[in-house]
């Protein structure tokens, strides 16, 4: 269920390395948990993010939740399509519904992230 070409946070974001940059989204587990996503607020290109700090907000019909940066870095791309069609997050959370691309500040934080197996373990204990 969770692709092993990327890593995960305990707050249910995924991060995939692409030539020194890091693409970020939320996991299918999170998308299913939220269900009916109707709004997403993302940072602007150029914003500096700090690992584990909120970088945006996602709202389902029921509630609003913060999005957390998996690693520190500068935002170099934002998925504008998602802002117009937030329901994409329910349809393809691991693919087309990526949220931002970061220019990572360092490699050290990457090693703190969970691999797919560890993340699968984490969510198997939540329901």
């Amino acid at each position, binding site marked *: 269920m969770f692709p092993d070409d990327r890593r995960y946070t305990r707050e249910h974001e995924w991060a995939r390395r692409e030539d020194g940059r890091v693409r970020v989204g939320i996991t299918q587990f999170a998308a299913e948990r939220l*269900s*009916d996503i109707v*709004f997403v607020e993302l940072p602007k290109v150029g914003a500096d993010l700090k690992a584990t700090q909120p970088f945006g907000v996602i709202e389902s019909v*029921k509630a609003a939740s913060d999005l957390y940066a998996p690693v520190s870095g500068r935002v170099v791309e934002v998925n504008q399509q998602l802002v117009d069609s937030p329901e994409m997050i329910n349809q393809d959370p691991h693919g087309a519904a990526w949220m931002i691309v970061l220019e990572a500040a360092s490699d050290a934080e990457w090693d703190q992230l969970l691999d797919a197996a560890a993340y699968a373990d984490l969510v198997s204990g939540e329901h």
Partner: protein
Amino acid sequence: MTGPPLRPTPLYEAHLAAGGRMVPFAGWEMPVQYAGIGDEHQAVRTHAGLFDVSHMGEIRLEGPRALDAVQRLITNDASRLAVGQGLYSPMCLPSGGIVDDLTVFRTDEAAYLIVVNAARHAVDLAWIQEHAAGATVRDLSDETALLALQGPRAAAILDAAGGGAATGLPAYHCAGGQTIAGVRCAVSRTGYTGEDGFEIACPWDAAPAVWAALLEAGRAHGLIPAGLGARDTLRLEAGYMLYGNDIDEQTTPLEARLGWTVKLEKEAFIGRDALLRQKARGIARRIAGFETAERAIPRQHCAIRSDGRPVGEVTSGTFAPTLRRPVGLGYVPTALATPGAALEIDIRGRSVAATVVRLPFYRRPKT
């Protein structure tokens, strides 16, 4: 975890089997959703949804003094009820603040059934007993399960399940002695969704059989189980107040636009003097429905401002699935509680423009 353990309804296993996601609600373990709030909401608007509302309380007042007690307790006028007829009413404190909002049915010559919110059950029961004045009060909540079958196909589904006799009930009427899945049920033509529909009371342990029979009969009509999440979006679109959010002991029916349920001309009732005074003085604030121009969703407790000045607080807010936009309710000064008035809602520190609109947000198409 602290506090008493959550109570399951008789349909707990049925909810799990249907993929229900269970959450704590007013001391009960209830399904917030199954397929998803959006799908369930849509099903109720276009076909039908089945809700477990067994957490709600049922309190009976009976005896020759029952009508007197009901009349003292509620703001609406129960003296006009024929046997088999019901009404919606607030029940107030002497201050005019709302103890709870209720559905009251006259089930017999001298018997009234009051359906109360789960979160207010204990408070209501004590209040009703204190003011029963000679009527016999019986709490039937532990032995009574309640299902809500809601949506334009509800009557066809009830008919298919064997409850056809009840499909002739006018709105806000009820009938006992209906048989569904071999179970004796009482059925009323009521609901909390803005659609046609029925509420079906049956013995606690028989609820799984009735639930299964309705789902089976409804399959060909697009019936799906629906949870508390959809119940909230449906009621908010339909402009119904939610106790604890939009009304409470600090708000009066006049402020909550429930003036139509306050019969000041009937005999004395608890809260009447305060409500008369409030009416004479002028109602300083009223609940208003508003829509926002952006997709960010106003939520309960967001500040409401007018020209930068704080004027109130959001009491309910959601993304309205039928209208495809955010809507909310909140108390504002009366001058601002008028369609077209401009408000600002503070959503996470950002000021979002809002416009007051006429309630309800959604009205079902005439058939």
